[in-house]
């Protein structure tokens, strides 16, 4: 196992490990672009799997989009679903493996456009799965087309004049929408644009998995993420755009927290 060792100073021997790869992540390079927050999201999920000691009980259902290769990065049993169908495939996996932990990792095109029927009904059934929903307001893998979550006025390769509500309707707020369904026990939105928010995101991911471990119902964490490549920005500019454009439109918050989850790490005080 490779270990990243940060030098505390140049004199002392390197004995104390302060930061290393979570064992739930594979020791491979990812295909994600520089500055993309998918890597952060992967690491947070892996840290949670490690901390809850559930790596060997966990099954990942990958989706289609930039997250399509996530099965290469998580060191867990995994399958690759058709575009948008991860919640249905996860339902099949979970129903015949009721004692295992099953999670999907989906982007906004996958979850909020082609897969709306599957995500809505998995939540409505209270399917005991956890959904990590990475919202970067664009189709990344196909080269930056308009997503259901693209902001009004946002220029993409398929909305070259900016998203027009008359043509393309309004962006969808999924965390709020899924919170309306009785089968959902946990639906929150977090952001990955700075360290403080990253830590808050991790707590939410942990709570979402705890909801599944306790067999409570459907849990989802929406993560506002950056896509410097397709937004045409530097990594830092992209993080600033998450904070200044995405967060105001997609308010961070807890849209549903089942009372049995109250008081846990990451739950509201």
């Amino acid at each position, binding site marked *: 196992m490779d270990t990243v060792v940060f030098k505390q100073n140049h004199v002392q021997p390197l004995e104390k490990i302060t930061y290393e790869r979570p064992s739930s992540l594979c020791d491979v390079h990812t295909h994600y672009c520089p500055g993309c927050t998918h890597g952060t999201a992967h690491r947070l999920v892996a840290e949670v799997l490690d901390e809850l000691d559930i790596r060997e009980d966990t099954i990942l259902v990958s989706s289609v989009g930039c997250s399509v290769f996530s099965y290469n990065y998580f060191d867990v049993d*995994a399958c*690759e*679903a058709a575009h948008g169908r991860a919640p249905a495939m996860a339902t099949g996996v979970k129903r015949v493996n009721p004692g295992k932990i099953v999670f999907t990792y989906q982007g906004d095109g996958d979850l909020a456009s082609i897969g709306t029927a*599957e995500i809505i009904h998995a939540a409505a059934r209270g399917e005991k799965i956890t959904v990590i929903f990475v919202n970067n307001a664009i189709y990344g893998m196909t080269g930056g087309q308009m997503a259901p979550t693209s902001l009004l006025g946002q220029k993409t390769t398929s909305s070259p004049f900016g998203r027009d509500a008359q043509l393309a309707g309004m962006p969808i707020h999924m965390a709020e929408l899924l919170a309306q369904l009785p089968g959902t026990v946990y639906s929150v939105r977090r952001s990955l644009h700075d360290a403080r928010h990253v830590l808050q995101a991790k707590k939410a991911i942990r709570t979402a998995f705890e909801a599944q471990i306790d067999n409570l119902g459907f849990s989802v964490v929406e993560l506002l993420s950056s896509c410097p490549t397709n937004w045409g920005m530097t990594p830092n500019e992209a993080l600033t755009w998450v904070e200044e454009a995405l967060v105001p439109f997609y308010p961070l918050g807890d849209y549903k927290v089942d009372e049995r989850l109250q008081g846990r790490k990451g739950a509201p005080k």
Partner: protein
Amino acid sequence: MSKQLLKGNVAFAEAAIRAGCEAYFGYPITPQTELLEHMSRRMIELNRVFLQAESEVAAINMVYGAAASGVRVMTSSSSPGISLMQEGFSYIAGSQVPAVIIDVMRGGPGLGNIQPSQSDYNQVTKTAGHGDFHPIVLAPANVQEAIDLTVLAFDLADKYLTLVFVVADGAIGQMMEPAELPPMRELPFERPSWALTGAFNRERNLVNSLYMGVEGLEELNFKLQAKLAQIQREEVRYETQFVEDAEVVLVAFGTAARVAQTAVQRLRRQGLKVGLFRPITLWPFPEDALAEVSERSKALLVVEMNAGQMLHDVRLVAGIHTPVKFLGRMGGRIPLPEEVEHETVALLEQLAVAV
């Protein structure tokens, strides 16, 4: 076990349960809904998995997930629903996981109607989804065979890690006949080594149809083609009646074959030399066996409840040497034995004149 009066759709469902089906995902559609209804009661009673999905698209992807987890899993639908499931069929084929699909066909295209039809022959044997694959396709002609072929479907799916279809028209799904169910099989204690069960004390498993590299995907396709070739060699099934001395051989499957059989029996009683060739596997199509029959006979008459879908496979086998005629009814209409007799007699007369 003794015979009991069973509806085709119920027979499919109960046969699947007894064959060890551990999970069923489906969506209501006429004329197969009794199958789903039977599953909804029996699977819950047996503490197995039953789920009514939000759509056929979701149902087949749930099947994919359960199949990837290494249990015997099934769905059922009818023609428009089968069209919707094609996405999942292709992924299941590419991932090489076993699954059983029951298709109780109805009239098309579009919403068509709910009458018996053989409208899905092309869809299930040739165009079940994008990419190069064929499911094994079994076609029962009565309720007993519906039971036997459903059990066989699960065994073949596991043996070859493939999709297996059992296709019947609505008549077989809806009719009641005396039939005998097999005994209940024990469910296996362990899952297959490749199944998704959590990577406990082993390397992780991956079920996937994505191969970004050209080499990897071509290699997968070579493997799939080799498997299909093996299935073509080893799993062909068909039935013949009176073909040894037949001048005209009727070729038909499912309900159309039963009608053709009645016609053949009546014409034989009149002393006419006619026979019946009934493919039981629509894929792999019984090419060699039909070719032999075709060489011995003067003409073939294909009878289908569609515009002539299996007809093309028969023509490929018969080549240019044996004339192939076609009698088809569409829109959910079942041909009458009299129509088939009339067409057969006309063909025999043509042949006599030609000689």
